[in-house]
């Protein structure tokens, strides 16, 4: 059995008939071919699969694709605008906010959502905001640096 799903992914309309049991993360990776969103646990804990659904950070392994019907989804591939990286992406690059890079797309999407809620978060607020995303490489300090960098450079940028 399949169910028709219509949604927008990175500003492009998508329409597919998909099995109701398919997780959103697998839909994005396997049907849309957007493999930048990663799977780390499939239990909603590690956050590697975080994407924006209607502007909010959502762990896409906790959602069925059919539940996202009608929504607007942004993945890591859709974050840069006109070839210019998002301030959060810039921050991760400038501050060595990643090592292996596997948690990074989810971490960046969670940080993007955080900065839409808090324009100038403290380091503690950034840490709290990223509690749902696990990183095993960096020890988080450089990630917090990266998000601070993004917050202070966001106003200079065209987006956010």
């Amino acid at each position, binding site marked *: 059995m399949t169910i028709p799903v219509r949604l927008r992914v990175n500003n492009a309309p998508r329409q597919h008939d998909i099995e109701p049991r398919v997780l959103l993360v697998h839909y994005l990776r396997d049907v849309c071919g957007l493999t930048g969103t990663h799977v780390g646990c499939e239990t909603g804990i590690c956050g590697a699969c975080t994407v924006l659904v209607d502007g909010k950070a959502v762990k896409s392994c906790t959602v069925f694709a059919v539940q996202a019907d009608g929504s607007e989804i942004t993945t*890591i591939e859709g974050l840069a605008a006109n070839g210019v990286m998002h301030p959060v992406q810039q921050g*991760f690059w400038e501050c060595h906010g*990643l*090592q292996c*890079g596997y*948690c990074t797309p989810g971490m960046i999407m969670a940080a993007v959502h955080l900065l839409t809620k808090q324009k100038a978060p403290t380091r503690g607020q950034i*840490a709290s905001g990223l509690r749902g995303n696990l990183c095993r490489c960096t*020890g*988080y300090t*450089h990630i917090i640096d990266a998000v601070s960098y993004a917050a202070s450079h966001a106003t200079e940028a065209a987006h956010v």
Partner: protein
Amino acid sequence: MSDATPYIGRAMKRVEDPRLIQGLGTYTDDLRLAGLLHACILRSPHAHARIRRIETSAAKAIPGVVAVFTGADVNDSCGAVPCAAAIPDLKAPRHTVLAGDRVYFVGHAVAVAVATDPYIACDAIDEIEVDYDPLPAVVNAMEALKSGSALTHPDMGANVAFTHVVNGGSDIDAAFRNADRIIKHRLYHQRLTPMPIEPRAVVASYHRGEGTLTLWTSTQIPHLLRTLLPNMLGIPETKLRIVAPEVGGGFGAKLNVYAEEALCAHLAMRLSAPVKWVESRRENAASTIHGRDQIGDYEVAVKNDGRILGLKATSVADLGAYLQLLTPAVPTLTGLVLTGCYKIPAIRFEVVGVYTNKMATDAYRGAGRPEATYLIERLMDVVANELKIDRLDLRLKHFPAPGDFPFATSCGVTYDSGNYQGTLAKAKQLADWDALMADRKAARAAGKLFGVGVSTYVEICAMGPSKAMPAGGWEWGCVRMEISAKVTVITGVTPHGQGQETSFAQIVADRLGVPIEDVAVLKGDTNVAHYGRDTYGSRGTAVGGTAIVMSVDKVIKKAKTLAAHLFETLDDYVVFENGKFKAPGITAREIAWSELAAEAYLAKNLPAGFEPGLEASSFFEPENFTFPFGTHICAVEVDRDTGEVAITKYVAVDDCGNQINPLLVEGQVQGGIAHAIGQALFEQTIYDENGQLLTGEFMDYAIPRATDIPEYTLGSTVTPSPVNPLGVKGVGEAGTIGATPAIANAVIDALTPLGVVHLDLPMTPERIWRAMQTRTVATV
């Protein structure tokens, strides 16, 4: 060069990052091959059981299922999983890729289903019926040593895999006879789960016409796999290509030859179709190697004035059910740095490796050295407390002087260089030690549980001299000045987050005098990086980087010969500086790489006997390990009501020799300390009394989150290593090794007013709370 400042020593952002922060990296699970099949593995829910029967017909009947195989189908045609460690009299069970008539641990692979879709493959394993006859499980390594214990592998007749004894330095018995006091202590180094955020993943593709097999795998060791898989697969290494694409964290967990790698390759050949297997997190927790798990009884022979005469360690290492690649070697590494930074004239180290019905232990970040460092650093505090000596004075009293290096230890290794007094002094200064002691006094007076811990560590890196390594410790590298004057660097190490695409480019750009943008570093594909020994043991830059340096120097030497020919002079008159060849006093002409490279490849005007091209490769064989060191100081406050630990200050001064890229060094240190915070405060792999794994998910296994990390004060000193031309030592494991005892010592120090003299790791709120209630020593 784009400007006069050298790239080496600069905190440069990474060339790896743009692809990774835009979701454009290719990890193994991201590969899409035409006709790809998906494997899912059925695993044992029992720690130890006899398999009476496996019924696969219902699974096979599901539309989309291509095949279902059990051990009976594959174990005869696919070889056993290898162990590379050579330990005398080692008893080892045959480790088949799928279970035979018994399962030996929870997570043991029993059957595999292959289907056109991963969801269907999972449906298929749900339909496989296995009739198990549960057997007594061996769960506790100490119990396993007792006569009458159940047996992990009944056919082996005993649970002991090996006994390894090292007597080093002067006469240990005399040391204990001459002691004023013998201080005894039992320490447990808990089992840990490495938990890289990317679980393992494998894609295998067989080209029937060529007879070649390509295996993409999330591994640290593509080259070692190419060496070891032919024995399992029956195809020669010349027909085997291993690719480690982007690898999402390793920490030792991917320093292994896993059954699933051979199994996928076997399936791809057997089914004539590419096969992918992606590990779930639960499988990762159960069936990827664990780390540590050593319990030891330690005795220190001391004089009343604080002199340590000798150290005896009797350690039991819980190996799990099987030997993975380095399982028995890891606990023996502990014996190599047992004495830490200290002059301790006599040692005896005995470790017994014991089989239990659990997943195998193997190398996890630090591998053997964290165990040694934790025990010696806890013991230094225990000895200081017993003798009422200042713990820093006790440490200083036993440090070798900077002039004592190279320093031969009683453990049988020679520390390359060091200045332990220097890191301690700098850490004290950064921590504002006297003020910290005053803070502690004031906090205690106010009824707070405030403690300060110190760890002065040394570790073994840059693995290593081949005579000390199971499979060769050299490294290979290649440098090619292309016809376009761009530079291709190929390394045999396999970085997976360490950033050597950047740091090796820094090294090469400086030496060749070219812009760093012109240098590309290739790695991780055995068809590109023809030889290598890969990434582990903090060896990448110290060993792999040196092979690159050797190759650059060969290219420059060859280029000088060509330049001399073009200048119509002799090699000796040619000078190479800032990317230009000159012949001062002979000609004012300068030759840039662009001109020289074109001449080398167009080959119309070469000296007699000069081979075209500008490429060189090298094998670097290190003469010794390197020995990074440092001092970590940690202050904590323990909540009296909840037992929760808050790290209020953390100072780390690490000396990893010269630093190629301080930003990457800082990242390694911070990441390493995070692992130590996990080990000290949260993490423990737990099996229940039946061998059931209780920490099978991130829900149950607590790795640190962003809110668990303190603000650090990081510093460094630089004592170059004399064993490689870069003077580097390695830094991948330092944080993990140095920080665990600093945090543990701080927590114990905080609890000292309550009379608590020791707690085992991890120092969870519950364990601390219980200790506070009873105010007695708590042990496992």
